[in-house]
């Protein structure tokens, strides 16, 4: 008689019991070893930093060396991880949920400090100390990290990235105009489009159009929310006018290419020699310099176009948050103190791309911006020294809140302009659609943040 094997007598109950025990044993292993592992880590004096991979690679090289040198001086082992900018929100969510990760988190975006407020250390003392030494924190800096309800600071403002206009001087000179107002941009842009050189402002789903179209909205006197950040005020005569303008600009001075663009497309448009005007950080100009010096020399930087209400443009921003669960909070604060003290070096390393959030952090004349030896003329970027006067981040004129971030990441303002531009909806209908979307988001976050 054949011997009965164990497999033939496996019942569902027995299977669950035995695999359950095996699963429990395997699952318990990390729990048993965890105390020993965490003791070993605690004994190690270290500081870990994560931040985006900068658009200017030389900045990352400078920062890594700067952080390492500081660590060596203070006998602290410093690690810096650079991750793609689009991975920042997912990384922050993962670290906050796990209650573990880097000590210092470099966050690229507007509302992150408010979204993660319960997870970030209050750095009011550090901000106050920096203000005393280097001048008052700017409006953008305050929007980024300050909590008006209790006076706390969830983040240490690092820098903002301005979005000036860039135009081909020879082409605009031929038509005897300057793209200094939104109206001039439309009229001159139409003339240059006829000559094969359209205006290039994206109407797609990415950061650049989210930033640029907010600038247009604000310069017409419209806004997504009120100053207190409590109410959606998008549905206004001013917003409808701004949307009508965007539709006219698209039809008269741009091509349908802009509907598909990502953040690098307008840079390529400029470098290809097609664009007569774009709105972008100076990285587009730097790329042009490397590929075509003559074309770059003909490209000039100008403040964003003036609107009927004001001259203002959206900006991108970066801040540092110290997690409450960070292993080395004091080292993180000490590093930020040292970083602020050496901020002009950071500014130079970024080639004038990172702009300060404290009034006197980089005294004027600012290096590179006041005199850039690689550009002709050397003072091409001089107007950018005052870009804090015309730069604002999402949420303006109110605070940068999680609700305003969701409006930003859902590309609602971009789509409001695009729907009107492509004739999907009239300007009025498009503004109503966007208002409904924004109100849904605002209602959802009410009481939660």
């Amino acid at each position, binding site marked *: 008689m054949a011997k009965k094997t164990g*497999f033939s007598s496996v019942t569902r109950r027995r299977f669950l019991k035995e695999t359950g025990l*095996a699963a429990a044993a395997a699952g318990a292993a990390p729990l048993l070893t965890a105390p020993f592992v965490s003791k070993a880590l605690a004994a190690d004096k270290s500081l870990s930093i994560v931040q985006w991979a900068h658009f200017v690679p030389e900045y990352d090289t400078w920062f890594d060396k700067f952080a390492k040198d500081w660590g060596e001086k203070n006998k602290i082992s410093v690690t810096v991880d650079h991750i793609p900018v689009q991975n920042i929100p997912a990384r922050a969510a993962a670290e906050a949920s796990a209650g573990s990760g880097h000590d210092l988190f470099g966050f690229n975006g507007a509302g992150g400090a408010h979204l993660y407020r319960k997870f970030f250390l209050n750095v009011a003392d550090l901000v106050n100390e920096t203000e005393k030494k280097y001048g008052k924190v700017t409006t953008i800096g305050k929007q980024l990290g300050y909590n008006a309800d209790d006076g706390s600071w969830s983040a240490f403002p690092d820098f903002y990235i301005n979005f000036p206009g860039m135009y081909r001087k020879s082409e605009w000179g031929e038509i005897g105009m300057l793209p200094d107002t939104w109206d001039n941009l439309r009229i001159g842009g139409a003339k240059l489009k006829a000559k094969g050189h359209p205006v290039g402002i994206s109407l797609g789903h990415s950061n650049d159009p989210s930033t640029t179209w907010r600038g247009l909205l604000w310069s017409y006197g419209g806004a997504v929310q009120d100053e207190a950040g409590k109410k959606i005020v998008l549905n206004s005569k001013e917003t409808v006018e701004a949307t009508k303008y965007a539709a006219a600009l698209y039809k008269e001075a741009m091509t349908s290419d802009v509907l598909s663009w990502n953040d690098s497309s307008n840079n390529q448009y400029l470098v290809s020699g097609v664009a007569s005007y774009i709105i972008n950080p100076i990285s587009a100009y730097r790329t042009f310099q490397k590929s075509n010096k003559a074309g770059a020399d003909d490209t000039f930087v100008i403040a964003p176009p003036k609107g009927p209400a004001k001259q203002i443009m959206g900006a991108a921003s970066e801040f540092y948050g110290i997690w409450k669960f960070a292993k080395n909070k004091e080292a993180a604060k000490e590093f930020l103190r040292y970083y602020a003290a050496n901020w002009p070096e950071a500014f130079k390393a970024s080639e004038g791309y990172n702009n300060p959030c404290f009034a006197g952090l980089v005294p004027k004349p600012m290096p590179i911006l006041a005199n850039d030896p690689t550009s002709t003329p050397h003072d091409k970027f001089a107007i950018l020294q005052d870009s804090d006067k015309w730069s604002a981040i999402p949420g303006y004129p109110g605070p940068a809140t999680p609700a305003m971030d969701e409006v930003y990441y859902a590309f609602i303002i971009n789509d409001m302009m695009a729907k009107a531009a492509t004739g999907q909806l009239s300007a009025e209908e498009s503004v109503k659609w966007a208002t409904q979307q924004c109100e*849904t988001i605002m209602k959802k976050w009410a009481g939660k943040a």
Partner: protein
Amino acid sequence: MVAIADSVPKAHSRFHFILDRRDVLGSLMVAPAILYVLLLVGVPFLMAVYYSMSAYTIYNPSWSFVGLSNFVDVVENPAFRQTLYNTFIFTFGSQILGLVLGKFGALLLLRPFPGRKFVRAIIILPWAVPIALATVAWQWMFDSLYSVINWTLIALGFITRANAPNWLGNPDLAMLSIIVVNAWRFFPFAIVIFLAGITAVPQDVIDAATVDGAGFWRKNYQIIVPMILPIVAIGLVFGIVFTFTDLSIVFLMTNGGPVGATSVLGFAGFQTGITSGDVSHGAAISLFMLPVLLVVVIFMLRFIRRREI
């Protein structure tokens, strides 16, 4: 000598003895797989279900129960309804295209020709290439300024620069583009499925059909396809589930644009739940896939079982 040697008892450890039992060893071998499914699929799934019925946000990680109100919020939003519609078009469009390409590819690869083995090996590349790399390549092919597709069409005289299609800027063409990329990814898998199915059809059945005068189309669509339908259906279940839950192509190529025309559930759930920090609504958007996928999978599996009977 042999008898003496056999009579000496071996020094077995208790552990060794336990591992000799097939039932214990079997349980130990299957435990990692079960642990993997429980920890990395089961637990996150249950958490997602609870998140979707809670007020959980990153700002306020509150587990307070809110019932189905998140689902109601999501359904009431017209942008979500557009996303749901897009997801169906994207999923079924790319599966149909992938299956058609797979069927023709398999028929071609069944015929003997020089280098067939090499072609069979290389055809798997779209499936094996990391999706990030492949999507970036496709993005350039559909680029508004540097599209090689448009360049070729212009060079052949079919279109001019002025009326060149704006692949990722026109809502319909953008949807078509992501369908094409996903079908391109899926069709090697479909080829493998069809090849496995067709080679399993008994030759005498095909010979009998040939003797009876059946031509190419009759043999294919009245004999071979009905016989391999169960295996094709299994492949289709995989394809539908993976496509319905996919966000990579949209995330890398269009970001849901233009004007929300390519936003799909996976992408919208990620944007709301992770990027914007509204975990509860993000989970509700993502879990919308569950009943749809459940119905599709149950229907397909029942169909397969009936065919087998």
